[in-house]
């Protein structure tokens, strides 16, 4: 009985995969037409539906219907998943404590300490700036490093095209011709002739923007603002200058060497002044800069130099990414 079972399973397997001989009545098959020696007729017999094996049926069905069914399934499942996730999160939100209440767990003792002792310990009038540059200076360092890394990676991606000069080795990648990537399309700034309105407005507003940027950076510990905001404003001044006066003029004083040198030195200064805490066991080494009275510009210890460093990095990065996108080089 086991032999019969095994034979049955073997036959079933052969039937599914199509390896075995077709066991239908071969005697009753219709006669094939005679194959003459010089005719080149291809084998045009299409197997009928009940003669195909399961695997062939499956393949045909997938070829015909697979794409549409898959796309419908994928879309419905993704919509259902998103709705379920949003629903769960909304239920969680409704369990949260009310907005702006004083007994929230988010308003705990840390804030008490920051607000009560923040002014005297850091010397900063702006509590947020004092917090991100003194109490939590390491987070700001990580974020500046992320900015720098982003700019360097964009530099690697978009300006590698100019350094490769060889032909593509594979005919397959003939569309991916590095040499033509940026040389076919002329740089954007050279397409423009003298634009009188733009130059007039730019000549008035660029000094104002640079002045505002510097004020926002330097008064970071007194007024709202700080390194990031001031750096972003400075970068917009540089972008406007590049647009109005041509790219060559800005390239004279802000090229790749300048950017890398300034950003690396600013990051290094930041790291040296705040990064030693790992090695001293989180004990704070007193820097020579005095904290001074609250409300002066030259107060707050290390916050002013660090603001300037962060401002330099942010301004250089944002302008550098703009220049890479439009020109291909900084």
């Amino acid at each position, binding site marked *: 009985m086991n032999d019969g079972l095994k034979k049955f399973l073997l036959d079933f397997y052969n039937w599914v995969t199509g390896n075995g001989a077709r066991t239908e009545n071969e005697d009753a098959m219709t006669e094939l037409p005679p194959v003459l020696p010089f005719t080149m007729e291809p084998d045009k017999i299409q197997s009928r539906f009940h003669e195909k094996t399961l695997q062939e049926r499956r393949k045909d069905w997938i070829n015909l219907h697979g794409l549409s069914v898959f796309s419908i399934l994928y879309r419905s499942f993704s919509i259902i998943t998103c709705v379920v996730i949003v629903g769960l999160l909304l239920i969680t939100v409704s369990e949260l404590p009310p907005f702006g209440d004083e007994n929230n767990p988010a308003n705990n003792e840390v804030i008490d300490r920051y607000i009560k002792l923040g002014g005297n310990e850091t010397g900063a009038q*702006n509590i947020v700036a004092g917090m991100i540059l003194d109490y939590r200076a390491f987070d700001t360092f990580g974020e500046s490093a992320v900015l720098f890394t982003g700019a360097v990676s964009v530099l690697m991606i978009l300006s590698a095209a100019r350094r490769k000069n060889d032909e593509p080795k594979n005919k397959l990648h003939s569309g991916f011709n590095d040499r033509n990537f940026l040389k*076919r399309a002329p740089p954007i700034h050279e397409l423009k002739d003298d634009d009188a309105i733009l130059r007039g407005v730019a000549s008035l507003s660029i000094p104002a923007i640079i002045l505002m940027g510097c004020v926002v950076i330097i008064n970071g510990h007194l007024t709202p603002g700080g390194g990031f905001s001031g750096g*972003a404003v400075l970068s917009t001044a540089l*972008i406007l200058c590049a647009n109005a006066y041509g790219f060559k003029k800005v390239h004279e004083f802000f090229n790749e060497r300048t950017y890398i040198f300034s950003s690396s030195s600013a990051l290094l200064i930041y790291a040296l002044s705040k990064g030693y805490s790992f090695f001293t066991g989180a004990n704070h080494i007193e820097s020579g800069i005095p904290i001074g009275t609250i409300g002066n510009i030259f107060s707050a210890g290390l916050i002013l130099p660090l603001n300037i460093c962060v401002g330099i990095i942010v301004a250089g990065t944002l302008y550098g*990414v*703009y220049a890479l*996108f439009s020109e291909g080089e900084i």
Partner: protein
Amino acid sequence: MLIIEWLLLIFLIVCAVAVSITKNLLNAVIIFMSYSLVMSVIWVLLRSPDLAITEAAVGAGVTSVLFFLALRRIGQMQRDNDKNKKISEASKN
């Protein structure tokens, strides 16, 4: 004040849905710029002026300019591809 907050938040949701529905990429980037501007106003309502300045300078300024530049570069590449195709077809004929 509550009405203004609700209005701004509903405008935010409408902007977000509109970005995913439009077919023109230029429209999508412009709607994204307005989204950034409304976010900046909301930060002022939540009483953090640091975030408002940073969001206005970065979101409605630099990020949108980067998107416009990328779109322009893609448009130039598309035009060059079409030109190359026409030249190759003309040379075949």
